[in-house]
């Protein structure tokens, strides 16, 4: 069952290869400042990792000094630049039997996201699928078109990272327009992944220097080694069979249903739409929502089809590793580990997947 997915991926990858050949350049750290200034001059808003007290946040930067590089992962994910935590989707006004609607404009600002991680970048093509599905989400799509992603490959990782278990790697190129890989203390190898990326690199002129030696494969690429924790091929078949299983409750008694995992996740995309209004006018606002909240599935009747936390936890796993795969041929998880880092109760998703993968190797022990 994994095979068809892999085939799909190979096919896509080949398409990219046929259409596009990578350009390699060098980016020196000392050029970061001219890079940011160059982007600003071209009218880009630049987002990069920034230190904010105890957190490392992807946020707008004005100069290279603000950029933080020495971390495993940013606390917030890349998604908020495409699907903000709160955004107005329209305003309305009612006057004498007449309703007038005003739709927001100018939300897709030219943006470069610099220094996000490969897992974050990889989440974007996965999410493109759902936002181009039954309804095309103009907010997502236009922002995607207006943005370029310049990723920095991970040179370190922690216990929570598991990109290699979900078919990615600390230097994978999925979703990036340019991939930077550290090759010395003050140099990065820049590989363009898309035409958009190539144009961006070109437009910045001398910020990037030619990789004069033709054998860039001899360079000392500093890429973290991320241990493979489980075999993803074993996950979905188990999920197909075990909607009812005692492991769901056993694992999730400690979950407090806070939903923090879904909010920091680059691939969780549920939202809620509310009207903030008075009698005659209001705004329709789209807010993040998540399946871990008990209100999420509460019916008007008072019935709640997912009335306990184990059902909600199961939903999270099922959605990511079964339903989304069935619908969109992609796993809805990039192994960034944020959900596990942030979880107040230390629910660890890769541990859950390890259990599932191991269970699958043994005979099923239901209820």
């Amino acid at each position, binding site marked *: 069952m994994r095979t068809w997915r892999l085939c799909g991926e190979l096919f896509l990858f080949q398409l990219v290869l046929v259409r596009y050949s990578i350009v390699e350049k060098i980016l020196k750290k000392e050029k970061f400042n001219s890079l940011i200034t160059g982007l600003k001059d071209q009218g880009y808003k630049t987002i990069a990792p920034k230190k904010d007290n105890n957190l490392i946040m992807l946020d707008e930067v004005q100069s290279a000094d603000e950029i933080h590089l020495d971390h495993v992962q940013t606390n917030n994910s890349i998604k908020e630049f495409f699907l903000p935590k709160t955004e107005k989707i329209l305003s309305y006004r009612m006057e004498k039997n007449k309703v007038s609607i005003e739709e927001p404009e100018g939300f897709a600002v030219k943006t470069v996201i610099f220094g996000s991680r490969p897992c974050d970048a990889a989440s974007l093509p996965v999410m493109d699928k759902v936002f181009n599905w039954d309804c095309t989400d103009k907010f997502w799509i236009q922002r995607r078109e207006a943005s370029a992603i310049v990723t920095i490959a991970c040179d370190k990782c922690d216990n929570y990272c598991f990109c290699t278990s979900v078919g990615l790697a600390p230097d994978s190129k999925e979703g990036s327009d340019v991939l930077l890989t550290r090759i010395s203390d003050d140099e990065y190898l820049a590989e363009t992944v898309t035409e958009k990326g190539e144009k961006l690199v070109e437009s910045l002129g001398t910020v990037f220097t030619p990789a004069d030696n033709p054998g860039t494969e001899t360079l000392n690429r500093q890429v973290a080694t991320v241990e493979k924790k489980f075999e993803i091929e074993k996950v979905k078949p188990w999920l197909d069979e075990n909607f009812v299983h005692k492991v769901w409750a056993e694992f999730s*008694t400690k979950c407090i249903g806070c939903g*923090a995992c879904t909010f920091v996740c680059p691939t969780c995309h549920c939202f809620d739409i*509310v009207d903030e209004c008075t009698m005659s006018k209001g705004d329709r606002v789209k*807010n993040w929502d998540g399946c871990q*909240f008990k209100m999420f599935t509460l019916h008007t009747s008072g019935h709640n089809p997912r009335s*306990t936390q184990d059902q909600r936890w199961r939903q999270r796993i099922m959605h990511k590793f079964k339903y989304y795969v069935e619908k969109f041929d992609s796993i809805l998880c990039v192994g960034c580990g944020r959900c596990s880092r942030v979880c*107040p109760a*230390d629910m660890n998703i890769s541990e859950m997947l390890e259990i599932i993968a191991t269970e699958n190797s043994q005979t099923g022990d239901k209820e």
Partner: protein
Amino acid sequence: MIEALRKKAEELLRSNTVNVIYGYGEGSTPERTRPVFITKPEDVSKLTWNKYCVYNLTTYLKRRESRKLGKPAIVVKGCDAKTIVVLIKESQIKREDVYILGVTCNGVGEPMATKCKACDVHTPRIYDELIGEKIENKEIPFEERYAELEQYEKLSEKEKWDFWQKQFAKCIKCYACSSICPLCFCDRCIVDKNQPQWIDPSAHPRGNLSWNVTRAYHLAGRCINCEECQRVCPADIPLNLLNKKLAKETEKNFKYRAGYNIDDELAMATYKEDDNQDFFK
């Protein structure tokens, strides 16, 4: 101490005094522990105790999933034990509903949590069984307990507003702060009510101010300063400053500290005829 804890836990389970132990177990990393629910005597070796036992496990008293496991014995530190006092006073549980496994504690967290620096409950003030050497609870003067507030209280009005606006702007409205709080036990929070919508669910500055002020205020005279809300806030908002401010005003005005004495009347459920009113015209 761990051995004593495990031994007692095993005894409680074997004798059917309780059905489950809410305790701490090994976590994802050595710097982390996690809540564990032990129902079988042979599993007590999963219990642990160290300086990473930050969680206030009494929060599982409000959760249906853990309550399903039956009568609990809960491992509590001095600060956590205060929660049980408040829960009893607020008629959420009866004293006999829980078995309190009090642990003496010298501080948790790395670096050590703020609450521990001015702790006067190293030995819990309420327990059924005490695990660990008794530590004398020293009285700490009022000023010292609220010392961390000072630098914020003396800011100008504008500085205060700007500081909090910056903090609240970070809020992503995940409600982890209230989900973790053992005393935020309403089945349906005011923020989830939309007829009318009192608090905007959006994570914009207006909704965030309203939410954060309301959350803190609903814990006025109730918060026992376990600092769990601040620990879990993914946006790193210093929620504890708000809680502390309210605790300070409650203590100053009503001589009440939440969870200290089981005989004290709940500050917000009572009044005195001569309560302060110098701000009334």
